[in-house]
């Protein structure tokens, strides 16, 4: 469950796993690598990037410069 001003969204398992890793420190490439490692798979990049774009548009995540 993600909560924000006057709204909330129930995340599915994979969205939750992605957002758990959005910590303001890791880059999207590092998040993808971490997910592929955690779930012993490859090729998640496009799906993760697509979700992060949606999440950015909806204000669920913000990007920070490093």
């Amino acid at each position, binding site marked *: *469950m993600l*909560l*924000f*001003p*006057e*709204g*909330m969204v129930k995340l599915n398992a994979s969205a939750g796993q992605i957002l758990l890793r959005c910590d303001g420190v890791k880059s999207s490439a590092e998040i993808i690598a971490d997910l592929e490692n955690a779930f012993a798979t490859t090729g998640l990049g496009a799906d993760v990037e697509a979700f992060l774009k949606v999440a*950015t*548009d909806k*204000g669920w995540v913000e990007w920070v410069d490093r």
Partner: protein
Amino acid sequence: MSANPAAAVAITPPLWLVAELTYTCPLHCPFCSNPLDFAAQNNELSTADWIRVLKEARALGAVQLGFSGGEPLTRKDLEVLVAEAHGLGYYTNLITSGAGLTETRIRLLKEAGLDHIQLSFQDSTREVNDFLSSTRTFDLKRRVAELIKGHGFPMVMNCVIHRLNIDHVDRIIDLAVEIGAEYLELANTQYYGWALLNRDHLIPSREQLERAEAVVAVRRAVLGNRLRLLFVVPDYFEGRPKRCMNGWGTTILCVSPDGTALPCHAARMLPGLAFPSVRSSSVRDIWFDSPAFNQFRGEAWMPEPCRSCPERAKDLGGCRCQAYLLTGDMGATDPACDKSPQHDVVLAAIAAGERVAERPMLFRSPDNSRHIMENPGQPTVGAEIRIA
């Protein structure tokens, strides 16, 4: 058919608790969503009652919490309730006019763990803001916005939209940018309570609405993620009803100042439904087992044209309060839907807005509330608007 129309419906727990702490408010907005007879209700829940409600709702799974009213800052125990809610793990929202939000109180609220503040403006101009609220609050709201940002809160600016300010939408968006709001709710008036009483004064023309929508579209494209614009659907003009409160008894639990539990803050006036009180029932019993909360769950209650409508799962038949207020039957299809056999009452309301209103605007004040209660012989809201 089963005696309990919701018997076959899986009941999900409440996720969102709306705590209407009080009907006391220094502002007198003529579109207020509080009940017309709010002045008769002065038996507010105690701090201990509210803490019990917060605990019980959280135990059921509620995570989103709005402290609302009236003006919730008129409750001296707001900080205590925020701290309790924060400790329980709620995301806590304060929905305020700004009146009473001093430097001292905002600091205490921050320490208590408040997550977000929604600040209302009535317009982008001092003149209209102060006229509609019957208070000199425009400058105060600007200062409160600075306090909110200064203390690092995310801020939603809310502005109820109607005929008197809809042509200022561009400037209202400018104001939201100036004060640093993250979200702007352009809340097209929903016609219940005081707004229904004053509908002839408030309803915009279709042309006004179309102009405003065009402005919002242009500004949204430019602003992007910097300021999120929420344009609350003006259902009278849409031809389809809204999925009210995300569906009756599906998500949101409202507790009114005297402890009456409601699926929607406007539902109290629906006839024949005994809404339970948190003073005498547990939140669990209220949510899962009370006949009132089960009344309009699922689809078994639906009449035609909803019952066979391919869109029924999308809008769930629309708003029960609106159906009652406009047709006299709370079980009818929401007349905002153009498939409703009574949609003409909505079209007539839009047409009535084009004429000069016959009555003066009635502001939301304790005096006017008592006057309405004490003069039942005068044209009532129901009689005036049941055109059918």
